[in-house]
């Protein structure tokens, strides 16, 4: 990334004003040297060794890694409209437990987040919940219908200060509309996050098109349907000199196209989900819809290319695409089932397993792809900052040596649709600090941060 982060939002979000001071003692800072972190008044007040602070609550972080609070660019909180699947409250509890201090709430709610009113509603729900910064994503087109632009400027100017716009779930397939959207959001430093899926090539698509779909007799979702849209979009972004973000990249060919575009200096960023870094379409042989997701699980060759692309910076960020569904949406035939997987509470562990324990990246890279870069793409102030004195105290403490077995029924999200159920994963979130307040302590929910009055 060469672009400068010149225009960021300046809002302080939720912050602790309880006055409690915390001393995090002996944590390894982003996997490097050990240090103490003194957290006071929502900020990291001091970083050093053998810090003393009378009256501070001391947190023994021996063996733990301190990371900048994780930021998710791609979360489905389902509210308003599908409170049976998830609410802002339950989704952000899951986020906090997963180590996140900020989430971007996707626009495909009901009503769609395509007006200032809806994005402000979601923003306000997030503030009153107090578990994480909730940054609404605005719809690109009215009702996600792909016909005319939503009021992008009004959403940008609203209290929610939207900077990321997406019709996620549906591709902005009309090339003229996509061009206009890319151009228009330059007026307020916005970015279009594209769900790259050529609709005609994926009519009725159920899974990755390849050897497994041929055997299972399921309509294929070919890699070319993703790659052709990304190729078109990077050329459009180049032509109009705009920022493009590609959601949930899933194929080896997409990684190649994005690598090419970045080499040409095109302002494109890309995201990959934890599940696409690990799972493949071989799992679909079970016909268990817990593995039904869009874009679909691909092949091992794609998985390896995504890992390599994430390691070399072609792919910028992890986005969970956390997509909770009520159980009946998955307890049915594959073709009838909803697409999507939960991800907030497993993201850190899955990335640790696939990227860190495989030796591809270190914890400093982890901080880049889960915090610094997503905050930068979303233009979030107060998030994604290095763990240094003066920074907002958004901190995740991780025990990298822990091992745990995924039990969806024990999760904070309402969704029970985790594809990792029953797997043993490394790494556990021990504490999460949101602007100086511990939303998670000892691996369990603590209390929400109290919203501060907006100035």
């Amino acid at each position, binding site marked *: 990334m060469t672009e400068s982060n010149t225009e960021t939002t300046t809002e302080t979000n939720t912050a602790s004003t309880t006055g409690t001071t915390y001393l995090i003692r002996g944590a390894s800072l982003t996997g490097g040297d050990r240090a103490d972190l003194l957290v006071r008044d929502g900020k990291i007040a001091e970083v050093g060794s053998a810090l003393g602070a009378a009256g501070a609550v001391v947190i023994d972080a021996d063996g733990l890694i301190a990371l900048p609070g994780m930021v998710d660019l791609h979360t489905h909180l389902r509210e308003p409209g599908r409170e049976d699947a998830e609410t802002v409250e339950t989704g952000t509890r899951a986020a906090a437990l997963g180590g996140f201090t900020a989430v971007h709430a996707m626009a495909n709610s009901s009503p769609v987040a395509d007006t200032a009113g809806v994005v402000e509603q979601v923003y306000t729900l997030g503030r009153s919940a107090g578990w994480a910064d909730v940054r609404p994503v605005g719809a690109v087109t009215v009702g996600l219908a792909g016909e005319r632009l939503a009021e992008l400027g009004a959403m940008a100017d609203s209290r929610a200060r939207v900077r990321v716009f997406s019709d996620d779930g549906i591709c902005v397939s009309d090339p003229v509309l996509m061009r206009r959207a890319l151009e228009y959001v330059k007026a307020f430093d916005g970015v279009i996050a594209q769900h790259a899926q050529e609709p005609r090539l994926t009519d009725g698509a159920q899974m990755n098109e390849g050897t497994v779909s041929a055997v299972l007799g*399921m309509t*294929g979702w070919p890699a070319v349907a993703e790659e052709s849209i990304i190729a078109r979009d990077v050329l459009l972004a180049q032509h109009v000199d705009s920022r493009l973000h590609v959601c949930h990249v899933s194929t080896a060919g997409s990684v190649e196209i994005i690598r090419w575009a970045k080499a040409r200096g095109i302002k494109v960023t890309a995201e990959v989900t934890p599940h696409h870094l690990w799972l493949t379409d071989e799992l679909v042989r079970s016909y268990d819809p817990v593995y039904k997701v869009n874009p679909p699980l691909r092949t091992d060759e794609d998985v390896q290319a995504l890992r390599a692309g994430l390691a070399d910076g072609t792919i910028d960020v992890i986005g969970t695409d956390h997509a909770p569904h009520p159980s009946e949406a998955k307890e*049915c035939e594959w073709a009838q089932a909803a697409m999507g997987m939960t991800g907030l509470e497993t993201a850190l562990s899955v990335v640790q397993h696939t990227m860190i324990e495989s030796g591809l990246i270190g914890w400093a890279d982890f901080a880049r792809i889960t915090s610094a870069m997503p905050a930068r793409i979303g233009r979030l102030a107060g998030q994604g900052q290095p763990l240094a004195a003066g920074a907002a105290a958004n901190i995740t403490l991780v025990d990298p040596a822990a091992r745990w077995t995924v039990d969806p029924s024990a999760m904070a999200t309402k969704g029970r649709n985790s594809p990792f159920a029953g797997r043993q994963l490394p790494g556990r979130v021990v504490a999460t600090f949101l602007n100086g307040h511990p939303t998670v302590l000892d691996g369990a929910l603590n209390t929400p941060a109290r919203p501060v009055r907006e100035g």
Partner: protein
Amino acid sequence: MKHLLSTADLAKPDAVQILDTAEEMSAVSLREVKKLPVLRGRTVVNLFFEDSTRTRISFEAAAKRLSADVINFAAKGSSVSKGESLKDTAQTLEAMGADAVVIRHWASGAPARLAGSGWIEATVVNAGDGTHEHPTQALLDAFTLRRTWAKLNGTASTGTDLAGMKVAIVGDILHSRVARSNLWLLRTLGAEVTMVAPPTLLPVGSREWPCTISYDLDATLAAGTDAVMMLRVQGERMNAAYFPSTQEYSSRWGFNDLRLAALDASGRDGTIIMHPGPMNRGLEISSAAADSPRSTVLDQVRNGVAVRMAALYLLLSGGTASAAPAPTAAQEAK
């Protein structure tokens, strides 16, 4: 073997066992009293989410000839059309005492879902799921092929396989559950399979299938084949640009009168023409071909009952081939 979901799951001894048992069941069907008491008191539910009168009555006849009680449940006009889920429907039927659920579904994998989800305990028989598989159709086709192959080789069919037999499967492979089930089963039994289709009607992943792929029916026929299985082609595929017109499809991939004449002139008198039905006469098969002595269309229907009797018997009795009773006069129902 608890369920019959896919022919890919069938090991060769299992497949031969079903075919051998079907030979015995076939003998029953030739008697004046066509009934065995082996499944008396057992309940078989035909759960059909997709219209298929032929398959449903074949399963019904098979279950009744084994003295089972049969419940037919069609999704149309039922609780399913009121929004009931597969899970609730299946659990309701099981609560009414179903020992086996014969399921036909438009969604690929629905039988596997029913068998693997833990929703019900009953035995699940796949009677055709989406574009995935139709294992009893493949078994009845294999049964028909094995009789043909044994006759050509001058042997009895019981206990034999299809080693060396050349079978061409022609038509809409992409959407065909019959083609998939036949491929796995015929390969297991030793046959050599050629899939003949327009490239648009072959799955992308079929390049890795254990068969020869051909776009040229005439070349396949000229190379010599022991059986030609014509698949039903739906005219509406034309609207989705799979092929330009039914006329062009018919001339390139249909078993028309010209191809029948060429086959007759080739001297391969033993080559049979198969079709799972229902046929589109004049599209994938001409009337002359369908009605020729080579056609085994009605044999296939007849053999379907015997094969389904064998499958239901083996699944519900938990028996093996050696345990399957030879139908004796003493065991026949009154």
